[in-house]
């Protein structure tokens, strides 16, 4: 029964993905004038023949609905077009950069949950205490803080002044190792390279903190408020009156239910992680998808921008799908 519902929910994501692809396709229409002209404006002298060839490659010589059809047909086959500047398939370029981005996003999510869970739970169990007020003020600050600025301030403090952590990149030049998965932390573990492991963790620390900070602020607030709600509910009072230890009341009874709304919010925060990704990768020169897109924007490499935005949106759709499915396991009362 559950499997069927999960399948149903997954199938419902397909039209959304098609819609996303159509919206991304329409992006190209936003350019004032002819995209090929604009791209060539920076490319130097090009013959009329080459222009025509490029126009044909982008199907710009066809009517709009045919262009859309061709675009969707290619996208379904995993063909997101050719990067005009790098002369390589967009899918390949994205795939090359994706591990770095995924590693950063995963680390940021872990950092934010490591901060948010204890802070949220402690604030709720000690409502209105100094700790509660302090952490909620911190959470407010985290929500209002622009990520690019936080990154720069962290660099100023920990890299420039204290010299504890590196300014940019993923790993030191000296620590040579062969990438297996593209996740450097994992790779250095797999190859047993201790120096590379420490180096990659050090490189990961500041970007992950910068990207995770706003997420942890939002999640801590949600955990606190939903914990407060569950702690006041009848079944928690019952558990208390049965003489259960406070530990068991908080963690076994209250937290489990408080996590249900939290999961949804974490799912939505994946959007923040993805959006902040371009910013943080730019600040820390992290060689991931985000930095590639920002570069592609200034190169006027429209196919690459288009393809990458689509990958971001798809990731977001899939993340929310996963959250929805997770939801059913956490809360047996709710069916998909």
């Amino acid at each position, binding site marked *: 029964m559950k499997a069927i519902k999960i399948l149903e929910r997954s199938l419902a994501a397909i039209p*959304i*993905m098609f*819609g*996303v692809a159509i*919206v*991304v396709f329409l*992006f*190209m229409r*936003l*350019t*004032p004038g002819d995209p090929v002209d604009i791209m060539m404006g920076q490319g130097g002298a090009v013959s009329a023949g080459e222009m025509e060839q490029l126009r044909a490659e982008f199907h710009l010589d066809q009517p709009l609905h045919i262009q859309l059809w061709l675009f969707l047909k290619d996208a379904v086959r995993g063909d997101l077009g050719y990067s005009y500047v790098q002369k390589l398939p967009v899918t390949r370029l994205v795939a090359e950069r994706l591990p770095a981005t995924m590693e950063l996003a995963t680390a940021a999510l872990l950092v934010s949950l490591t901060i948010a869970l204890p802070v949220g739970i402690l604030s709720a169990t000690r409502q209105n205490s100094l700790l509660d007020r302090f952490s909620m003020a911190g959470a*407010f*600050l985290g*929500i*209002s*803080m*622009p*990520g*690019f*600025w936080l990154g*720069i*301030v962290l*660099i*100023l403090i920990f890299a*420039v002044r204290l010299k504890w952590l590196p300014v940019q990149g993923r790993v030191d030049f000296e620590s040579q190792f062969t990438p297996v998965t593209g996740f450097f932390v994992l790779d250095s573990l797999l190859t047993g390279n201790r120096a590379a492991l420490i180096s990659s963790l050090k490189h990961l620390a500041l970007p992950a903190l910068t990207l995770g900070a706003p997420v942890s602020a*939002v999640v801590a*607030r*949600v955990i606190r408020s939903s914990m407060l709600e569950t702690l006041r509910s009848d079944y928690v009072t019952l558990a208390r009156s049965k003489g259960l230890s406070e530990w068991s009341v908080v963690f076994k009874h209250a937290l489990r239910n408080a996590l249900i709304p939290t999961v949804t*919010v974490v799912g*939505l925060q*994946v*959007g*923040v992680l*993805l*959006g*902040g990704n*371009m*910013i943080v990768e*730019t*600040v820390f020169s992290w060689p991931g998808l985000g930095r590639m*897109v*920002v570069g592609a*924007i*200034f190169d006027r490499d*429209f196919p690459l*921008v*288009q393809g990458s*935005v689509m990958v*971001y*949106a798809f990731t*977001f*759709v899939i993340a929310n799908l996963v959250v929805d499915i997770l939801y059913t396991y956490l809360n047996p009362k709710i069916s998909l």
Partner: protein
Amino acid sequence: MEITPSIATPMQRLLYLWRIRWRLTLRALKEFGRQLLGHPVALVAGIIILAYLLGAIFAPQITSHDPARGNLRLRFQPPAWQEGGSWEYPLGTDAQGRDLLTRIIYGARISLLVGGLSVGISILLGSTLGALTGYYRGRLDAIISRLADLLLAFPFLIFAIGVMAFMGPGFTNLIMALTFKGWVEFFRVVRGEMMAEKTQEYVEAARVSGLGHTAIIAKEILPNIIQSVFVLGTLRMGDMIIMEASLSFLGLGIQPHIPAWGSMVASGRDYMLVSWWVSTFPGIALLILVLSINLFGEGLRDILDPRLKLQG
């Protein structure tokens, strides 16, 4: 309230109605002011926002420096309290020898203007569409709701960056990039509330008394919803301002010669090792403004709409 006087002409009747309406508005405003006084955090936040607003409007009167033109001989002057700094340039100067404080004050114009306009247009568009579709439902509702779902599939900043990448930098483009997706949330709130309110008795009563649909939407239902829209609008304004700053940080904001906080932080990035202040201060100005707007929004929610629980 006074007893209805004898009404002679339709004009008099109209004037009388307007007088009552005015008095009610005044009373509501007074009540709001009274409650704001009991909410010190929101009050202070409101005063800070007002200060930013006044600073932005009267920027040329506040500072005598030119925000665009600098003196290359005075590059990277440190803040006044550091060795080598002077009170002529309280927060120091940037790579082109321009006064940082002046540029920060002028930068408030862009942040407030973009934040205000993009939220304003989003509210207008989202509420109108939400009110119409929530009330009438039908095919238009189906189409617009699908479109809203679709836009929700994009992370906001990614969407804005994507739009700006194709449209190119510029003020109008920036506002458009932010409102293309910004209206969705207001649309969903108003549509949802509209559908709920529509079944209420007072709406039924208004319809029985012969009021037209447009009048019911505009005069009966919308005043009950508008408060949650205001609260949401305030909370989203902070997000929009951060988003604008993020876009200008990436070089996708307005034209580079106009001072904006995001691009100021970006320009200081290359000189971080020697002059920390160039990136730091515009960011602090941004942080204080957004923090104040968020705190004011939370206060507004407590005062206007304690039921409403908007997350994030």
